């Protein structure tokens, strides 16, 4: 019996593995040397304080793109303190104790006094004491005017622009916060100097002015955007407790009450060097990068690893839906639950996404846009609002004139049923695999694109090489795999539907 088992084990281990049992597409063979060359052009190192660096050499032009990826986003925020991650991102452009101020000692006193006054203003409001509030507000405004005299406005951004930097910006998402720009290749040390200083010694000045800016941003993205409201409501409906249900921009009430201390605490917890990944792509010498990184970022003292967010979302057992009536032509949204990117089936969700919406040969384009003409356009978000943790797989459509969102829902239902019940054709699967490989290839001639991609993979999966391993994994996916995942993904009881409809003509606005 044992002998038989051993033999079976041996046979199994010697059996042809999927990789060479199926002939790899010709395309993969042509592209592979370029991906290998890329791998060879990458250098990586970690500083003693835990900060990770990846350097990709590309000498096509004397330019360099930089990315700092902070492994923190809205998902890490506490209840009642939404919007802090994004607020911090804005404030990270305000300079340091040396950059952006004309007199830091005096400024620091004024800022402290303003914070204390703000706490008292909030307390007076809470107590309904209008008289005190008005008095405190007047004092506050005076201090704000005083504080403004110490500010060398937007100095940080100006230094970069003056140096010939382009693409200076940052983004905050549910999972991550990213800071990036590009510089001419002779200014590598400038990036080292500025970025290390900004993350070691940030000063969150112009805190209250920036609050107004962010409130304007929220108005623009949500209050005055029907689809913005749809997405916010969708996440609140599809998720009961998951931190992903809270908007990245934050709720108005939380933003209003946010204090500088809130931002400082968040920064202290989540911006330790071990939580940052830096990527440098372009016309550089990796040894010079390493030396400079040690010199500049070596000063950054390590901090404890921050705690992960608590995700205890109960399984959805019944379909959910909502309708918003807003001044807009109709939209249809349908979402399901999928696991985060560390799940072994992760790439299969991407394949399903591609089969459904990529290009004019995609299932939903052909059925909804071309054949029945019920939708003007269709699309998806594979991982709304993020993909580190259990998340949402979203499909959406815009109705064509004379059609209703419900019609999109019906047709979508038919297509998803097809995907559950019939294996996809070899042609379709082959197409998606070829496109995945070609798509990566096409990103290789963009420094900033590669900086972004390498940072994301390193920070989220622990190894930038997974960027390539994912391609191999994609190659091995079978039609049976796709069907299996489609069946677990597109379960009617796990569906959330959102419909955006126009008000009836002549009705008053809500």
């Amino acid at each position: 019996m044992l002998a038989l088992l051993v033999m079976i084990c041996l046979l199994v281990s010697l059996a042809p593995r999927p990789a060479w049992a199926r002939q790899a597409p010709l395309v993969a063979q042509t592209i592979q040397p370029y991906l290998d060359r890329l791998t060879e052009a990458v250098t990586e190192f970690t500083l003693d304080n835990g900060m990770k660096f990846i350097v990709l050499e590309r000498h096509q032009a004397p330019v360099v793109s930089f990315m700092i990826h902070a492994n923190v986003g809205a998902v890490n925020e506490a209840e009642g303190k939404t919007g802090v991650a994004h607020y911090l991102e804005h404030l990270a452009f305000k300079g340091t104790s040396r950059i952006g101020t004309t007199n830091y000692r005096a400024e620091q006193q004024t800022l402290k006094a303003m914070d204390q006054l703000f706490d008292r203003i909030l307390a007076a409001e809470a107590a309904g004491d209008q008289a005190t509030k008005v008095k405190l507000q007047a004092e506050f405004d005076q201090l704000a005017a005083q504080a403004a005299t110490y500010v060398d406005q937007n100095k940080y951004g100006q230094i970069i622009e003056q140096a010939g930097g382009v693409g200076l910006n940052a983004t905050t998402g549910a999972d991550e916060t990213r800071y990036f720009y590009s510089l001419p290749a002779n200014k590598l040390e400038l990036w080292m100097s500025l970025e290390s200083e900004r993350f070691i010694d940030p000063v969150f000045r112009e805190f209250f002015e920036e609050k107004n800016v962010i409130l304007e941003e929220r108005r623009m993205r949500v209050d005055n955007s029907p689809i913005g409201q749809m997405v916010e409501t969708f996440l609140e409906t599809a998720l009961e407790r998951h931190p992903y249900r809270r908007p990245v921009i934050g709720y108005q009430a939380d933003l209003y009450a946010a204090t500088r201390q809130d931002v400082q605490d968040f920064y202290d917890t989540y911006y330790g060097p071990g939580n940052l990944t830096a990527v440098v792509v372009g016309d550089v010498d990796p040894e010079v990068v390493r030396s400079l990184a040690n010199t500049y970022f070596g000063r950054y003292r390590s901090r404890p690893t921050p705690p992960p967010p608590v995700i205890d979302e109960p399984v959805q057992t019944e379909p959910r839906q909502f309708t918003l009536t807003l001044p807009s032509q109709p939209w249809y949204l349908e979402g399901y639950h999928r696991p985060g990117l560390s799940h072994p089936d992760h790439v299969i969700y991407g394949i399903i996404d591609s089969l459904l919406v990529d290009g004019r040969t995609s299932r939903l384009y052909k059925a909804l846009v071309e054949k029945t003409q019920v939708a003007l356009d269709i699309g998806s978000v594979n991982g709304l609002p993020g993909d580190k943790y259990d998340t949402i797989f979203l499909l959406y459509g815009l109705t064509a004139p004379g059609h209703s969102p419900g019609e999109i829902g019906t047709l979508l239902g038919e297509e998803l049923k097809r995907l559950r019940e019939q294996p996809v054709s070899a042609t379709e699967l082959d197409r998606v695999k070829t496109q995945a490989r070609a798509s990566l290839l096409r990103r290789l001639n963009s420094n900033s694109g590669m900086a972004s991609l390498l940072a994301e993979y390193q920070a989220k999966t622990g190894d930038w090489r997974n960027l390539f391993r994912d391609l191999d994994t994609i190659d091995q996916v079978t039609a049976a795999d796709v069907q299996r995942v489609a069946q677990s993904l597109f379960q009617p009881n796990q569906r959330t539907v959102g419909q955006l409809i126009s008000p009836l003509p002549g009705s008053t606005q809500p």
Partner: protein
Amino acid sequence: MKRLPARFELLTLALLGLAMALWLGWQAPARALTPRSYDQLEFGPLPEIRIPDFERYQLANGLVVYLMEDHELPLVSGTATFRTGSRFEPAEQVGLASLTGEAMRLGGTTTLKPEALNEALEQRAASIETRIDTTAGSASFEALVDDTEVVFSLFADVIQRPGFAPDQIDLLKRQYRGSIARRNDNPDEIASREFEKLVYGADSPYGRTMEYATLEAIDRQAIQAFYQASIRPEQTILGLVGDFQTDQMKALIDQYFGAWRGHGNPLAVSPLPTVQQAKTGVFAIEQPQLTQSYVQMGHLGGQLNDPAYGALSVLNEVLNGFSGRLFNQVRSRQGLAYSVYAVWSPRHDYPGLFVGGGETRSATTVAFIRAVESEIDQLRHAQISAAELARAKDAVLNSFVFNFQSPNQTLARLIRNEYYGYPADFIFQFQEQVRTATTAEVLAAAQSHLKPDQMVILVVGNPADIEPNLATLAPDQPVITLDLST
């Protein structure tokens, strides 16, 4: 089964060689072992800008061709630029050019049904896209190098023998009707569209909009006629970039484009439409659901070949950008806006715009507009400081290298210059203009080109919450409310 091309090994060596040359070329100043503040740093020079080798020639049928090799990746791409544009379509058929542009691709070819064309491309992770915009049309393709000939032949078919399948034209018209229905869903879109209508005029080829009636007047015949008049070898510049050998590519071009002939009469592309500013004053579009106002303000602008273009680019930097006057004042200091801008925005061959704007909450609409007006006013009355001039010049000149990041970018610029009749070295002339700009020149440019008395101010928002109301902006003229009905 293709062996790794021999040139790949040469390429690796070439890259190594290049890396070493750069390393020797700019000795980093005494390597920093102590961290330094940004103002203590010194930087070595950048290498000189190098334009990649390219070849330009012309076929007997008039087709102009540019070829630029790029062996970094196994990709090939190309763009054909056509001398046409929506500014030439008949007024009763606004939308014809745009429709024709899309229909060229969506309608298949005379030998390949639309679905078959889509599959042939997408199965190979290739693409062909076509469009016609205001001043030009284009057809572009992208392919993996092994598919060069297959995709290039499809590209030639799409350009020379489009099928204009009737059901695809119907689909496109439906989609366009849908886009008319949706064009007021986004206040930003409303603002920029209606602003251009006010400045150029609702009947101008640069301001007019597609309507249900003009769309209805377009049929397959009209599309075919516009296509025939527009898409012809003697009116086309073809540019190719990628992993090919020039002589091999030339053979393919000869094979697939050599016999191409136009039919019928070419589109009349001159004289270009005349332009003058249509309106001035304060205008409002009521959207009671909004809590912010979306503002566009400005007037008619100019062209890139205006002698003051360099000085005006300096002005753009001073106003916009991270430490520009608007960002500092309107966004950071007053917290009035998330986005605010005022840009001299020229075009190649017709007057562009000077346009400012942004979003602000309803109650601060007038304050926002006054703040932008104030900045414009200051620029017309006082020279910018020497420091601002230096910063603006630095920003443009130090980032100049980013105009040459890829062969593709350089080739597109060469073709653009030829298409619009600009000198091939125009970008270097611009660089020199900026380098030699003075504060006096910038002041003169502001005074001659920024015209507060010619302003159109458009506010898309909720008038009930705009306090003080818009009338305070122009006490001598009534505020005109525009109707958006389709």
